[in-house]
């Protein structure tokens, strides 16, 4: 009997020690798995226009528009593993690696990462395009980089439309007080400024002057690109539009240094009739930009 009890006790002790040690061993074991990094991959990059449509980009006169590009970046280590995204937007005459230029190159060094879902994350780059961004084909190059520094890039292209635009810095041309029969001994200057992305010519037309008493024909006004007295001004104003083909106002940043407005002076003079008018006289002068 004692032998049986002793044997049972021995078996229980052995079992306790065996399972007990196993438990202890399990508690103290440590796993050490190293997961290698997977480089991110990129879906299709899309460069949207200023309205968020996959169509040509239309700039705004004397102002800016915002265009965006986006792409889905996939990282099999998890979408949150994508650390950053950058983008460049450049004209066909430039390359991705060149420095920024208001006419041909833009950079966004901190594009937005959003919408992490599993292994995916959406990268969105916004670019502010100013009116002088040249027309033609533009390419966006987006790069996404993960936490270990591995990166992936993709591109898309879109077209920027031509923009003819101007700003006449004067709102009026004042000839001042003049005697009957007199003409402008020195011309009045009008400044025309480019506000688009193509070279332009100017088209001029004017109404006849309405005076307190009487009228002055529009043709009594003369203009030219050189500051000279009335008699030497080259062209007479007409009621029907006339193009000054030699105006050739270039694009800011192309005809001038980056950041410097592209402007041209037009000089104006008037001949007051010898009789038939009195008081103040005014007309409307229309200055029209046209691709040239």
């Amino acid at each position, binding site marked *: 009997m004692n032998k049986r009890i002793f044997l049972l006790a021995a078996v229980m002790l052995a079992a306790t020690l065996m399972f007990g040690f196993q438990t202890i061993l399990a508690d103290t074991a440590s796993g050490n798995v190293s997961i290698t990094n997977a480089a991110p991959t990129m879906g299709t990059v899309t460069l949207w226009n200023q309205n968020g449509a996959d169509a040509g980009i239309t700039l705004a006169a004397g102002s800016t528009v915002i265009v965006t590009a986006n792409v889905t970046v996939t990282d099999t280590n998890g979408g949150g593993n994508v650390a950053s995204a950058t983008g460049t937007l450049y004209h066909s005459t430039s390359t991705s690696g060149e420095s920024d230029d208001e006419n041909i190159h833009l950079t966004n060094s901190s594009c937005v990462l959003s919408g992490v879902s599993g292994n995916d994350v959406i990268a969105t780059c916004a670019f502010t395009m100013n009116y002088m961004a040249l027309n033609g084909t533009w390419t966006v190059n987006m790069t996404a980089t993960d936490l270990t520094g591995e990166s992936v890039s993709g591109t898309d292209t879109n077209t920027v*439309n031509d*923009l003819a*635009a101007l700003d006449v810095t004067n709102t009026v041309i004042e000839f001042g007080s003049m005697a009957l029969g007199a003409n402008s001994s020195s011309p009045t200057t009008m400044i025309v400024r480019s506000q688009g992305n193509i070279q332009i010519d100017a088209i001029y037309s004017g109404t006849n002057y309405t*005076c307190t008493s009487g009228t002055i024909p529009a043709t009594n006004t003369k203009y030219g690109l050189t500051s000279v007295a009335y008699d030497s001004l080259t062209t007479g104003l007409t009621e029907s*539009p006339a193009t000054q083909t030699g105006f050739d106002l270039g694009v800011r940043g192309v005809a001038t240094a980056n950041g410097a407005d592209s402007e041209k002076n037009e000089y104006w003079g008037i001949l007051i009739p010898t009789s038939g008018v009195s008081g103040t006289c005014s007309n*409307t002068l*229309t*200055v029209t930009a046209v691709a040239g």
Partner: protein
Amino acid sequence: MKSAIVIITGIILILLSTPAHAVAFGASPATLTFDIGKGDSLEKTTTVSTNSPTYLGVTFSISDEIKDFITISPTSGLKTKLNEPLEITIKAKSSFFEELGSHTGTITFMTAPAGDTGSGTGSAIANGVAVKITINVGSVANSEKVTGELLHTEPKGMNLSTALVVMTIVLIALAALLFITKPKCKAKK
């Protein structure tokens, strides 16, 4: 009361059409080409824009060279201001009897004068922008032109071997016909 309404309306109209300072004014695209066939039409858009913080009233004119081909919409209530560009739809249409050729002209968009000459003699300046239009009337519209390499297709007529077989059959048939219809010679007695 009526006079007050008239004055307020006048002020609103002036504010709509007269910016207090010089502003940029432009159109994009500034050049448009329409390739259309006889009796066809095609629509494109141009966008008129400004950096004026207040609304500019906009008027337009179509040059004589193209006015018979062009309609635009909208035609009334045109206005634009900063961040509110004005989109214009331009439709070019040719009649079926139009001669083939090219027509060029402009559509000019204009603002009201921005300033007032005050008490002296002078000119109030209005801004404008002209969109160059080219209409090419062809026998076939651009969208219908065949592009890419020509496909090889079998000629609609018979090939040479078929023609020889047919000719042989015809000759045999003719010979048979002649033989059947040949008058038999009778020996004169």
